């Protein structure tokens, strides 16, 4: 081996060791520098993707849109009824809290954001949204859509943030099955790349008796997600030797994700 090649190889190995042993903070600083240098190009790239998506949407057949409008009208009616019932319950709850001299501690500040980029990385199920630190967004905050839980903030930058989706294996959520005592950990599955893949609900009891269509909600445990956020519905149940696992169809259509809401704070 030529001396120059050997020196280059040794320098490279030293550099590789240095990078591999960087602290989490240093990594985040490098990422922040990278994304701030790339911000203009990211913005242009996102605009291009958004325009392309809007164009495809506009060309959707008008009859399909009319049918969708009718469905939405029906849904609005249903939600109005639910909302009025919810307001009654809220008033009743406030009365009870007041009666019990409970200090109101619940706050629910949200920021609306638009999905500007989908799947920017090879392996991870992530999207970028057009709201960041300047909107008060920090790491690990819940991201919701009107259909349910979308995911959590992974990396906030100044004017944009990266959201790790519920369909990613790394996004774990403590979940419960409606009408049962079953609780488990819900996450995406590895090796699923298309559309809205099924999620896996692990660590259920061995005697879990679940029916297809039963709804799955967040428990609120674990310090990440607020309770009672809809996650999906049970698709099937797989019994194991020590525990059971269920496949869950997510309530959110991740293919058609457009506007999302970041929960800034739910509790103080």
């Amino acid at each position, binding site marked *: 081996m030529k001396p*120059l*090649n050997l*020196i*280059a*190889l040794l*320098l*490279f190995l030293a*550099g*590789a060791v240095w*990078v*591999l042993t*960087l602290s*989490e903070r240093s*990594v*985040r600083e*490098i*990422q922040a*520098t*990278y*994304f701030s240098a*790339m911000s203009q*190009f*990211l913005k*242009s*790239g996102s605009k*291009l*993707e958004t325009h*392309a998506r809007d164009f495809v949407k506009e060309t959707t057949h008008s009859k399909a849109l009319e049918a969708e409008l009718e469905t939405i009208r029906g849904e609005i009616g249903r939600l109005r009824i639910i909302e009025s019932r919810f307001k009654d319950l809220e008033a009743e709850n406030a009365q009870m809290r007041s009666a019990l001299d409970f200090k109101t501690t619940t706050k629910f500040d949200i920021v609306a954001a638009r999905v500007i980029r*989908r*799947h*920017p*990385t*090879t*392996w*991870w199920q*992530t999207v970028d949204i057009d709201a960041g630190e300047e909107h008060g967004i920090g*790491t*690990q905050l819940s991201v919701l859509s009107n259909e349910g839980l979308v995911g959590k903030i*992974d*990396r906030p930058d100044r004017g944009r943030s990266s959201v*790790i989706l519920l369909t990613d*294996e*790394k996004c*774990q959520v*403590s979940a419960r099955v409606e009408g049962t005592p079953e609780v488990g*950990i819900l*996450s995406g*599955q*590895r*090796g*699923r*790349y*298309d559309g809205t893949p099924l999620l896996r609900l692990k660590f259920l009891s061995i005697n879990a008796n679940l029916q297809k269509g039963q709804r799955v909600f967040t428990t609120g*445990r*674990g*310090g*990440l997600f607020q309770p009672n956020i809809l996650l999906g519905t049970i698709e099937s149940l797989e019994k194991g030797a020590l525990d059971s696992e269920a496949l869950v169809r997510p309530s959110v259509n991740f*293919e058609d994700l457009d506007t999302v809401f970041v929960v800034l704070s739910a509790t103080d």
Partner: protein
Amino acid sequence: MTLFLLLAAFVVQQFLPAFTGFHHSRILLVQLVFLCCAVTVNQPTMLLLAFVGGLLWDAHSALGPSSGDPAVYVQAVESLRFGYSVVLFAMVGFLMQGIQPLFQRGKWIFSAILTGIAVWLYLAAEYAFINFVRGDFVFNQATFFFFFFIALFTMLLSPLIFWGLYWIAKSCGHTIYPEASRRKKRTQ
């Protein structure tokens, strides 16, 4: 010059969306430019490109650490260590340098095919790492096609990158086919 080309690839990569109809596969332009450059430059330059390329690629795609109450989230899902791409880039870079003599004789078609194979190996290594740190080896049909389409789409673009490198070298008074140029001069 190759370093600037690699940085330019990072910029263009931001404009390349995933192909939703093909298992969300994508063109890995950064890796492609690196592989094409690796076959045209000497070893120290290749290692410099591998270091810069790998570092920036990880900055582009690394996820944050898992969080939440460990009493609830008992099995934390690990991510790949920041910097692994530096090593992977160098490994596929050495692979490309293995056929450098053939490339220097002007037989670029072998290098073009090897870029596809190298991208496939790069993805396979990444996927193997993910399986290793997370446990439960999973390899399904979707994963196979995901690898296949990425390698194919990336490989199909390689002649364009080689052509670009050829013209950049020519405009700087160099050649990326020194053996072929010498032979051509001898026959003239």
